């Protein structure tokens, strides 16, 4: 059983919802990332999504774009990101880590080599934002052969045929994008999300995580009532941006911020 599968089964058994924070690796500086990952676990993270910075993050809003720019200004490379996961794993063997990013840095690294190194470093899953199911057949098997889960996005525009196509190739969980837009966009409509999740569940038994537009405890709790897990990214990255010049304060701030969402999620 993969670490991700284990976490979702345990959540379900305890009747709890998953909390999946996202931060961009290397932001505000590569030397802080591992500390911040541990801080998120202390705040109640069930799974970590670690962003691999890319120069042209076309699906991300301004908050994560700037995080990518900060990380790249310090030369954060995919090789370094794998090193961060390896370091994290020395003291945390339980929390699954999903790398989220764009295809080009992975191709530049070498797809097969990346898959092998990711597994060795302790990565559990990979979400490649600009690799839809149609373009995945060349790459996804390389990930699966190394035991990495392939996480795919589903969107409000995904029709029934696409949901099937995507669910067949996915493992770990499915990431439902709650709105038409980029990361960190305005508001999400929980009633609409609930209806879409119900439709998706007719096609798959994979856990459904919902992201884009979850910014605080209240929205996390609302989405938690209909999803198996909630993903929160831009709200955390905005916190990192505000305190980028006082990195020593960041771990505690993130622990508190995520902790408030954890508490709301567990109450709902």
């Amino acid at each position: 059983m993969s670490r991700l599968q284990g976490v979702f089964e345990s959540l379900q058994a305890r009747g709890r919802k998953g909390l999946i924070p996202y931060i961009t690796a290397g932001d505000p500086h590569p030397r802080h990332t591992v500390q911040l990952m541990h801080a998120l676990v202390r705040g109640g993270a069930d799974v970590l999504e670690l962003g691999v910075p890319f120069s042209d993050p076309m699906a991300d809003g301004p908050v994560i774009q700037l995080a990518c720019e900060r990380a790249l200004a310090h030369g954060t490379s995919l090789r370094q990101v794998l090193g961060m996961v390896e370091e994290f794993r020395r003291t945390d063997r339980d929390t699954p880590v999903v790398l989220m990013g764009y295809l080009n840095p992975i191709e530049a690294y070498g797809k097969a080599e990346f898959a092998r190194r990711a597994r060795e470093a302790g990565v559990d899953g990979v979400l490649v934002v600009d690799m839809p199911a149609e373009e995945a057949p060349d790459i996804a098997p390389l990930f699966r052969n190394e035991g990495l889960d392939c996480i795919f996005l589903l969107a409000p525009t995904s029709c029934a045929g696409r949901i099937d196509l995507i669910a067949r190739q996915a493992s770990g969980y499915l990431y439902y994008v709650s709105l038409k837009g980029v990361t960190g966009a305005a508001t999400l409509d929980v009633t609409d999300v609930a209806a879409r999740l119900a439709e998706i569940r007719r096609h798959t038994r994979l856990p459904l995580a919902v992201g884009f537009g979850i910014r605080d405890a209240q929205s996390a709790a609302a989405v938690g009532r209909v999803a198996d897990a909630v993903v929160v990214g831009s709200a955390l990255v905005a916190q990192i941006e505000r305190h980028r010049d006082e990195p020593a304060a960041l771990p505690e701030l993130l622990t508190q911020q995520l902790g408030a969402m954890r508490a709301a999620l567990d109450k709902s």
Partner: protein
Amino acid sequence: MNEQTLPDARGHFGPYGGRFVAETLMEPLRQLEEAYNRLKQDAAFRAEFDQDLAHYVGRPSPLYPAERLSRNWGGAQVYLKREDLNHTGAHKINNTVGQALLAKHLGKTRIIAETGAGQHGVASATVAARLGLECVVYMGSEDVERQSPNVYRMKLLGARVVPVTSGTRTLKDAMNEALRDWVTNVDNTFYIIGTVAGPHPYPMLVRDFNSVVGREVLQQSQQMLGRLPDALVACVGGGSNAIGLFHPMLAHTGVKMYGVEAGGLGLATGQHAAPLSAGKPGVLHGNRTYNMEDENGQILGTHSISAGLDYPGVGPEHSWLKDSGRVTYVSITDDEALAAFHELTRTEGIIPALESAHAVAYARKLAPQMGRDQAMVVNLSGRGDKDIFTIAKREGIELGILPTHQSSPTGQSK
């Protein structure tokens, strides 16, 4: 593989092309592809497009025998395909007229576009004005500064120009921002991509709309020469004017084709925009193609004197044509392009766009290697009015955009 039948059903040109976008855009792209495949067979749609090309764009554009230039260069007879004479001054309008018709048929009320030099932005704002559609143009903040006359043109046409301050603040970042707008407003918005890049079906449909250029050259050269030309030369940024000229003649293997990239300060300096000459295959803006990137797969900033060529990627069909050897890709430096700009202006009385001047500069090298009985067609993709400020500045001449009433002590307006 037959080059004329590409892309395949999944939008691939050999290993290139495809549809590498986030899930939200997959279904809208599929709908666009379906609508385009239906409409391109539709006689009424084609008649409407042809009508617009004839009476709005002003086609066919002339194939002009540049006799003085040919004599000076001492080799092949040089013909200029005069896309600079189109409405709005470049080949870009062929594509925007076509995509605007698609937008109309899809019932979209809002047009967005990205632009580098501003030519595609102007061409998009133009068709939006004509159809009464809202228009938003994304433009790198650096380009907004260096192409201010085009920014003003777009505003006159009723478009909103949004300066993009992320990344390198040029064309690639404008394209990222336009994609972000599209993913957010996909229900009512049509994204008019300006070049043969982006996710499938854009490289195919932008090529098809620009292929009128090559089809006209086929006819015109038969009429004027009684045969096809021996060589075609066109500049390549994203590559839409080049593919428009090349594509209808790909099957005619006797016609040699040369795509001219922006060599900037020289390929060895790294300060250029020549992914086919000095880049490697990767994925950017929804397609797999040659890109300029570092060893970690991060996209590099580019340099060219010509804003329209200042792009780190290139249309995927060009990547395929490079690998297959059908087209030869070369590069021309800023200085060579500038020299060709002046030479064409003085010799033939035609002020070319700096983009097109790259093609002219390569033609100057190629012509003497060819016989006098041979013919070469150079795609003069745009006119140079937009560039006179860039050139004046580079040559240390100060032009006041808006003349002031008071003169400075030296007598020059500031």
